[in-house]
């Protein structure tokens, strides 16, 4: 069953193994590829105190289910540990939270405060961004397909501003009505960090 969730809701969720029913850690960052609007995976930290050390990277392929309360994986070995493996799977990355959002018409909307995902069992795709305008007002901007991101900004189609809504529920409705087209094909990995 599909559901629409904020990336921020996933942060701190336990990562639980299906074979041993152990908590392998908890979600620290949600990794997305905005240009293909897909989930890349998660970084996993130790449980307990905030700031627990990084345990490893959980690639999206290793996820069995993204639940309301836990991210389920088959075994502990679904998490890639060690510096080299982690770097190889992360590639170049950057924080998307705090990034300036500019329309392709050249208007600045504000900055990214959260990402909205449509979760379907083990997979998830990006269906919108929450943007804080300079006056503090927050907008939910739906997207259909990939959007370019650089060090400097995230560029959204100008019409997405007209489709912006104020709450997650409204965005949920618009996601359920329109199916976005296939995202285009440039690959990179970004880190969503809280």
């Amino acid at each position: 069953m599909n559901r629409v969730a904020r990336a921020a809701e996933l942060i701190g969720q336990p990562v639980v193994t299906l074979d041993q029913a152990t908590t392998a850690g908890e979600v620290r960052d949600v990794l997305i590829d905005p240009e293909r609007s897909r989930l890349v995976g998660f970084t996993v930290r130790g449980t307990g105190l905030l700031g627990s050390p990084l345990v490893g990277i959980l690639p999206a392929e290793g996820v069995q289910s993204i639940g309301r309360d836990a991210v389920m994986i088959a075994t502990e070995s679904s998490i890639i540990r060690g510096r080299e493996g982690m770097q190889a799977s992360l590639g170049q990355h950057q924080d998307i939270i705090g990034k300036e959002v500019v329309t392709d018409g050249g208007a600045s909307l504000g900055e990214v405060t959260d990402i909205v995902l449509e979760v379907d069992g083990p997979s998830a795709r990006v269906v919108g961004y929450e943007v804080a305008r300079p006056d503090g007002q927050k907008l939910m901007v739906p997207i259909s397909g990939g959007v370019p991101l650089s060090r400097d900004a995230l560029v959204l189609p100008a019409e997405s501003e007209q489709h912006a809504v104020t709450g997650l529920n409204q965005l949920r409705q618009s996601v359920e009505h329109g199916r976005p087209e296939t995202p285009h094909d440039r690959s990179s990995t970004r880190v969503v960090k809280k």
Partner: protein
Amino acid sequence: MIRLSQLKGQRILTRDSAVQLGSVRRLLLDAAAGMVVAAELEGVIGDDTILDWSNVASIGPDAVMVESADVVRGAQSEAEKRLAAGELDLDGKLVLNEAGDALGPLEDLEFDEANGRLASIHVPGHALPVERLVALGPDAIIVPLPG
């Protein structure tokens, strides 16, 4: 059918000599098979804390009867050692379904005392019929999705 809550603290008596061997502390589940396979006892003299479920002769309102003191034994398997260490304790453990949705802490568990077969898991407000578990571990009890 019998519940975990009815068994906890029940004394174990031998039929042949009327000796109290101890009382039920925890139950050991075989998650994949969906069976209660043993009970761990407390208050025993010595290290023989494991009572295989197949050696339970009768469960009365006031005692669990076994034939003789020979039926209790020490913890041997990995699972029995983990049980004795408290890792596989059931009470209050988080029940998750395999999709990752939390159903609540385990309040009770019901099974067929004749063969140990699991019947239901009780969480606040619900009794979930279960035939087997996906996994039972130190952090969670994972149940299959219904259907």
